[in-house]
C-alpha cells in the first residue's frame, strides 16, 4: 500500500509569517503622512548581529525642495526627529541560554572525540593526506563518505548495518555518534524538566528566585518553550533509537567491548558507554523495547493521571475510563499494570479471601501453572497469555539468518495458537464472561491476538497504534513490516501536526523529509540532526544527488536558501556545515551566547575561519574577564588549526588587541594601551603613546604614572620596540640617580645620546638631566664625553633657533627665550666640566 506521500504531504507547511515589529515612528499604515512631512524611515543593521537602528530621516534633501515645500516643511516639527530606535529583530528566548551551553558542551566533547578517532586512524584512510590536514578539515565530506561507504544504509527499521562489515575505526566513530546523541538527549530532558520547574515557580509567583532567573518571562511563555522542547525530545529520542544508537547498529552487546578497546578515542565516554551496554547486555534490548520506552517517556497522554483517578475511586471498576485505561496499558505493553487492574474486577476474582470466585479455591502452587487454554476465567486467561507472549530478542529482530529467528517464529506461532484457542473470529468461546463485559474482553483479546482493526480502533494516537502494531502484529519489525504499519496508522489517524510529520518521516527513514520538517520545528534540532546524520554517514548520498531541495523555512535569517544543486556548486560547503553556520548566525543575536556562536563557527571547516575573523573583533567587550577569555579562545583556535586558518585567527587576535588598546587609550590607561598595541602590531601607535607618556612626565614632573607603566613592562616586551626600550633605559637612568651611582648614570646618558637610541625630540630633556651630574663633586664625564655632550647641545640649540621651539618636546617656558636660558646654563656647566676633566 503506498504511503500517503502525495504532493500535499511532502511539501513542508508554509513558513510562519514573519512578525511585524511596530516601533512607533508613525501610525500604522501612515507612511503617507511621513512623506507629506518629507520624512522617510531609514535603518542600519549592525554587522554580524541582529541589532538594527531605525530612525526617521529626510526624504529629499532640503536643498532639493522647492520653495513652497520648504516653507511648508519649515513650520512643522516631526516629533520623532531626534529619536533613534535600537531594536533586535530576532531574539533567543532567555530560558534557552543554559540549554544552548549544555548542548554546546556535548557538541564540543563529541568534536574532540571525533578528532581523536580521526587522528588515531592513521594510514588506512585512502588518499587522506597528512593527519593534520585531515583533522583540520575535520568533518569534511571526505571522512563521512568513507565511513558511509563502509556502512551503506538500506531500508529497515532495525538498521541494515552488519557487524561484520564494520572495522574497528568505523565502530569507534559510531560509538562517538551514539554517545553524543545520548548526551544531547539527556540535556534536552534536563532542560524540559527545568523549564517545567520554572513554569511552576512563575505560576506560583515565587519571589526573588524566579524573578532573577527568568527575567520576567511569563509562565505561559515558559510552558510554550517546555512544550516545544518536549517535542524536540521526542523527535530526538526517536532518531536516537532509529539511527544513532550503536547498540543496534553493531548487533548488541559487542559494542560495550568495542568502545573500551577504542578507549583512546573516547576515554571518558567509554566508561559510560560500557556501563550502559553492560546493563542491557542481555538479549532483551530490542528496537521494540526502545520504542516502548520512547512511547512511555514522551507520549504518556497522562496515563499516570488516569491511573490515579481510577484508583482514587471507591469502586475503581465503575470508573467510566476503566476499560480505556486497560486497553491503553495493553497497547503500550504495560502488561503488569493492565492485569493488576483487571484483577480488581469483582466478578473474576480468584483470591482466597473471596473464596475463589467461580473458580473455586485453587492451591497457590497450582495457580502458576494455569495456562490460557485451561482456564475459563478471562482475567486469568489474559494474564497467562500476555505473560507467555514471546518477545523477540535482539538477534532475532535484526533479521539475521539463523536459529534465533526461526526459533522465535516457532514460539510465536505456538503462542498464537493458544490465543486463537481462546479467542477466534471475535468470540471468546471457552471463557465464562459476563455479558456486560463481553465487548470489553473481546477488544482486549482482540488487541492481544493482533487484530489490526481492533488495535487501530482502540488506540488514541498514532504512536500508540504504531507501537502496538509492532508488538502484536509484526513482532519482528522488518523493513517491509514497518511500511505496512505506517500505512495502516496513517490511514486511520492521518496525522498532520508538524511534530507527527517529523516522527513519521524518521520512521519512514526518509531523512531529507525529516530534516525539512525538523527545521521548521526548531533550528537547533535540525542542525544537530544533520550533524549526527553527517557523522554517521547517512547524508552522503543525498548531498551528492542534491535531492535535499530547498529548506523549509530558510532558517533564521540566513538569506538565500540552499536551493538544491550539488555540494560542489557552493564552495564545497557540506550540508552539515551550512546548518551550523546558520545556527551560529542565529546565536549571534543574543550577546551572552557569544561563546556558543564562536564555537559553532570554529567547528565549520570551510567557512568557519572567515566568520571567526569577522566576528571576533566585533564582540562587545563589556567585562575584563570576557576580553581575557576571547584572547585565550583566539589563541587556542590558532594553535589548533595550523596553516592558513591560524594566520587568520592570529590576525583576528591582533585586531582584538587593537580594539582593547584603543579603549585603554581613550580611558587614559597608557600602559595597557602600549602593551596591547605592541601585541596588535601597531608600532606607530606605540611610538606616539610613548612620546605622550614621556611628555606628560616631563611636563608635570610626576614620576609615579611613568614609573608604574615602565616598571610593569616585562623585559621581553621592552625590547620589541625601540621607543619602549628607550623609555625603559630612561627609567634606569633615574633609578641610577636615586641610587646615587652617578658614574654609571653618566655612562648611560652618554650611551643614550651617542648611540641615537634617544629620539631627537628628547635630547633637550636628557641634556638637562646631565646638569646635576656636571655640577657634582665627582667628575663623571671624561673629555670625550664632554665633547659629545657639547655636540648634542649645539645640535639642540641649532634646531631650536631654526624652528623656534623644539618639536615634540615640552617647552617649560613661554618661548625660545627661556629655553635658551636653560641651555646656557648647560653650556656653562659643560665648559666647567671640561676644564675639570682635563686636569
Amino acid at each position, binding site marked *: 500500500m503506498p504511503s500517503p506521500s502525495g504532493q500535499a504531504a511532502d511539501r513542508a507547511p508554509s513558513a510562519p509569517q514573519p512578525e511585524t515589529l511596530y516601533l512607533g515612528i508613525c501610525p500604522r499604515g501612515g507612511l503617507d503622512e511621513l512623506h507629506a512631512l518629507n520624512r522617510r524611515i531609514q535603518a542600519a543593521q549592525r554587522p554580524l548581529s541582529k541589532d538594527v537602528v531605525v530612525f526617521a530621516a529626510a526624504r529629499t534633501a532640503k536643498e532639493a525642495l522647492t520653495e513652497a515645500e520648504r516653507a511648508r516643511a519649515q513650520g512643522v516639527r516631526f516629533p520623532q526627529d531626534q529619536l533613534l530606535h535600537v531594536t533586535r529583530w530576532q531574539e533567543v528566548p*532567555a*530560558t534557552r*541560554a*543554559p540549554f544552548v*551551553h*549544555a548542548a554546546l*558542551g*556535548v557538541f*564540543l*566533547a*563529541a568534536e*574532540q572525540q571525533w578528532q581523536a578517532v580521526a587522528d588515531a586512524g592513521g594510514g588506512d584512510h585512502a588518499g587522506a593526506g597528512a593527519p593534520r590536514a585531515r583533522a583540520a578539515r575535520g568533518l569534511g565530506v571526505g571522512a563521512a563518505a568513507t565511513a558511509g561507504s563502509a556502512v551503506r544504509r538500506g531500508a529497515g527499521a532495525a538498521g541494515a548495518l552488519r557487524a561484520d562489515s564494520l572495522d574497528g575505526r568505523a565502530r569507534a566513530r559510531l560509538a562517538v555518534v551514539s*554517545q*553524543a546523541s545520548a*548526551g544531547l538527549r539527556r540535556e534536552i530532558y*534536563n532542560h524540559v524538566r*527545568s523549564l517545567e520547574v520554572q513554569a511552576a515557580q512563575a505560576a506560583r509567583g*515565587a519571589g*526573588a*528566585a524566579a524573578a*532573577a*532567573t527568568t*527575567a520576567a518571562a511569563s509562565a505561559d511563555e515558559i510552558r510554550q518553550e517546555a512544550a516545544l522542547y518536549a517535542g524536540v525530545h521526542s523527535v530526538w529520542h526517536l532518531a536516537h533509537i532509529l539511527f544513532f544508537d550503536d547498540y543496534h547498529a553493531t548487533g548488541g552487546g559487542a559494542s560495550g567491548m568495542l568502545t573500551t578497546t577504542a578507549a583512546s578515542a573516547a*576515554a*571518558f*565516554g567509554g566508561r*559510560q558507554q560500557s556501563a550502559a551496554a553492560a546493563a542491557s547486555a542481555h538479549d532483551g534490548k530490542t528496537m521494540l523495547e526502545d520504542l516502548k520506552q520512547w512511547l512511555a517517556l514522551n507520549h504518556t497522554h497522562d496515563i499516570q493521571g488516569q491511573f490515579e483517578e481510577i484508583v482514587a475511586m471507591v469502586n475503581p471498576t465503575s470508573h467510566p475510563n476503566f476499560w480505556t485505561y486497560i486497553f491503553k496499558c495493553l497497547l503500550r505493553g504495560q502488561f503488569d499494570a493492565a492485569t493488576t487492574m483487571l484483577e480488581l474486577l469483582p466478578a473474576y476474582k480468584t483470591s482466597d479471601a473471596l473464596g475463589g470466585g467461580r473458580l473455586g479455591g485453587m492451591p497457590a502452587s497450582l495457580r502458576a501453572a494455569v495456562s490460557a487454554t485451561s482456564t475459563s476465567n478471562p482475567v486469568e486467561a489474559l494474564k497467562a497469555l500476555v505473560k507467555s507472549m514471546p518477545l523477540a530478542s535482539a538477534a532475532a529482530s535484526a533479521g539475521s539468518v539463523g536459529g534465533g529467528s526461526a526459533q522465535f517464529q516457532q514460539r510465536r506461532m505456538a503462542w498464537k495458537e493458544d490465543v486463537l484457542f481462546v479467542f477466534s473470529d471475535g468470540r471468546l468461546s471457552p471463557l465464562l464472561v459476563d455479558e456486560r463485559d463481553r465487548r470489553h474482553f473481546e477488544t482486549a483479546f482482540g488487541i492481544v491476538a493482533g487484530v489490526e482493526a481492533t488495535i487501530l480502533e482502540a488506540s488514541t494516537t498514532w504512536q500508540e497504534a504504531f507501537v502496538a502494531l509492532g508488538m502484536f502484529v509484526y513482532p519482528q519489525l522488518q523493513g517491509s513490516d514497518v511500511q505496512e504499519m505506517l500505512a495502516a496508522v496513517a490511514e486511520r489517524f492521518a496525522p498532520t501536526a508538524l511534530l507527527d510529520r517529523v516522527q513519521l518521516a524518521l520512521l519512514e527513514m526518509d531523512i531529507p523529509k525529516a530534516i525539512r520538517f525538523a527545521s521548521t520545528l526548531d533550528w537547533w534540532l535540525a542542525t544537530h540532526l544533520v550533524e549526527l546524520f553527517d557523522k554517521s554517514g547517512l547524508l552522503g548520498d543525498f548531498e551528492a544527488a542534491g535531492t535535499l531541495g530547498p529548506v523549509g523555512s530558510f532558517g533564521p535569517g540566513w538569506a538565500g536558501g540552499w536551493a538544491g544543486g550539488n555540494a560542489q556548486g557552493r564552495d564545497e560547503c557540506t550540508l552539515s556545515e551550512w546548518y551550523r553556520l546558520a545556527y551560529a548566525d542565529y546565536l549571534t543575536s543574543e550577546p*551572552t551566547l557569544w*561563546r556558543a556562536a564562536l564555537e559553532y563557527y570554529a567547528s565549520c571547516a570551510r567557512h568557519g575561519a572567515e566568520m571567526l575573523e569577522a566576528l571576533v573583533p566585533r564582540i562587545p*567587550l*563589556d*567585562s*575584563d*574577564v570576557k*576580553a*581575557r*577569555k576571547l584572547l*585565550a579562545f583566539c589563541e*587556542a583556535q590558532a594553535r589548533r588549526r595550523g596553516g592558513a586558518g591560524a594566520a587568520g585567527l592570529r590576525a583576528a587576535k591582533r585586531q582584538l588587541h587593537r580594539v*582593547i588598546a584603543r*579603549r585603554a587609550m*581613550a*580611558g587614559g*590607561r*597608557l*600602559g*595597557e594601551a602600549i*602593551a596591547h598595541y605592541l601585541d596588535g602590531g601597531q608600532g606607530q601607535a606605540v611610538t606616539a603613546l610613548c612620546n605622550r607618556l614621556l611628555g606628560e612626565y616631563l611636563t608635570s614632573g610626576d614620576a*609615579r*604614572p611613568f*614609573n*608604574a*607603566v615602565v*616598571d*610593569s*613592562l*616585562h*623585559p*621581553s*616586551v621592552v625590547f620589541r620596540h625601540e621607543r619602549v626600550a628607550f623609555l625603559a633605559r630612561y627609567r634606569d637612568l633615574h633609578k641610577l640617580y636615586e641610587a646615587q651611582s652617578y658614574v654609571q648614570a653618566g655612562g648611560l646618558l652618554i650611551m643614550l645620546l651617542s648611540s641615537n637610541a634617544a629620539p631627537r625630540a628628547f635630547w633637550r630633556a636628557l641634556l638637562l638631566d646631565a646638569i646635576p651630574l656636571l655640577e657634582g663633586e665627582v667628575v663623571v664625564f671624561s673629555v670625550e664625553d664632554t665633547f659629545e655632550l657639547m655636540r648634542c647641545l649645539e645640535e639642540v640649540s641649532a634646531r631650536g633657533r631654526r624652528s623656534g621651539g623644539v618639536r615634540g618636546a615640552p617647552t617649560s617656558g613661554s618661548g625660545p627665550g627661556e629655553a635658551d636660558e636653560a641651555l646656557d646654563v648647560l653650556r656653562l656647566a659643560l665648559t666647567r666640566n671640561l676644564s675639570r676633566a682635563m686636569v
Partner: protein
Amino acid sequence: MNLTERMLNARAPPHTVPVLARLHAGPTIAGKVSRVRWAPLRSLRSGRSLLVAGTYDGRAPSVHLWSFDPQARQRLAEDGDEDMLAGVLESSDMATAATHQASAPAKANVTGLEFLEEGSTVVAALDDGHIRAFQIQGDAGGGAGGFRLSVVAENKVHERPDRHLAGCTALALSRASSDQHIASVGADGKIAFSTINGRILHTIRDVDSLSLTAVQWRTASQVATASLSGRICLYDQRASSAALVFSDHRVDVQPLHSLAVHPVRAEKLAVGSDSGLVQLWDLRNTSVPESIESQTHESIVWEVQFHNNSFGEIWSCSEDGSVGAWTSMVSRSLAGEAKAANGVMMDTAADRTTLFRAAQQPLSINSFSIQSDSGALVAAGDAGQLLFTFV
C-alpha cells in the same frame, strides 16, 4: 647549581602524563558562574553546609546560595551510585540575590566572593567597582525559600569609568577572626583596603599599569598581588610603595591570572598564568621560581589554591575545562613539614598531576572551592553547572 644551570633545567618541566578523573555533574544555575565558595564549616545550618556561587555575563548577574549535605560522601561510598549525588544538591534550597540595584540597571558581574569567618556573611566584589556584603538568613528546614540573601552593606571602592573593562577584579579577606579587612584590587591598578561596614582604610595607587588580577593576604598586614604584566607585588597595608616586586624574567611575558599563598608557610606562593602554567615561588629567592613548575593546563588558569589536608597538592582550575591537582616533591615537602609528627614517609616519585574533567562538558571552569573537612570539591564555570567530587 648556579643560576644558569637552574634556568636551563627549569626550561623543560618534567613531563608527566596526567591521571584523568571525573567530575560529577550537579544542578545547573541559569547563567555562567564566575565564583563558587564553600561556607566555613562552623556555619552549618541544620547539618547542611552552604555554598555560594556568583554569576556573570548574563542578563541578571546574581549571587546564588545552595545548601549541601556533608554526609553525602558516606552514602556515595556505600551505594556507589554516582548519579545519586546529583540529587543531594538538587533537593537543597536555593536563594538568589541580584547584584545590582533596581535603580542602576547596568549589569554588575561578580568578580570575587568570600565568606567571613563567622560564616553567615558573604562579601562580593563587583565589576562596577562596588563591594557588597550579603547576609544569609533563614534555615534549611523551611523548604524552598528557606534561605534568604539580603544586602547588608555596599561600598564603592574602585572606579570604573566608561572605557574601562572592569572596576574591581578580585577580593581577599584578612585572616583575623574578627573585624576582618577586605583587600580588593581593580583594573585601575589600585589596591584598596576597606572594612565590611564600608569604610575605606587605605588606597595604594599605580601599583601596575596593566590590570591587577588577584590579591591574597600573606600575613596580618601584607598582601600579595598578581597582574597581567606578570609581576607579583607585595604591599604592606599602610605603605604607599611596594615591599617587594618580582616577576619571571626568563621567557616571554606570562600574564598572571591567579595567586595563592600557602596557609602555613607564608613565603610560598603559587601563581597561575595565561598559558596554563602553575608556578611555585619562594619569596626568599625571587629571581627564579622554584625549579619545579607544571604545565598543568592548556589555557588560562583562573584559580590556584593550596590544599593543606592532603599531600601538599596544588589545585587549579582552567579555561580548558579541567580542575588539576599537582603534587611535586617540593609541594609535598611543604605538607610534610606540617605533618612532621606523623613521620609519614613521602615517596620521592616524580610529580603527579591529576586532571578532573566533567563528562561531555569541555567549557571553561572559572572557579572551585574545597571544603577542608569533608573533602568536597565544587567547581563551576561557563556551562553554569555545579560540578563536584570528593578529594
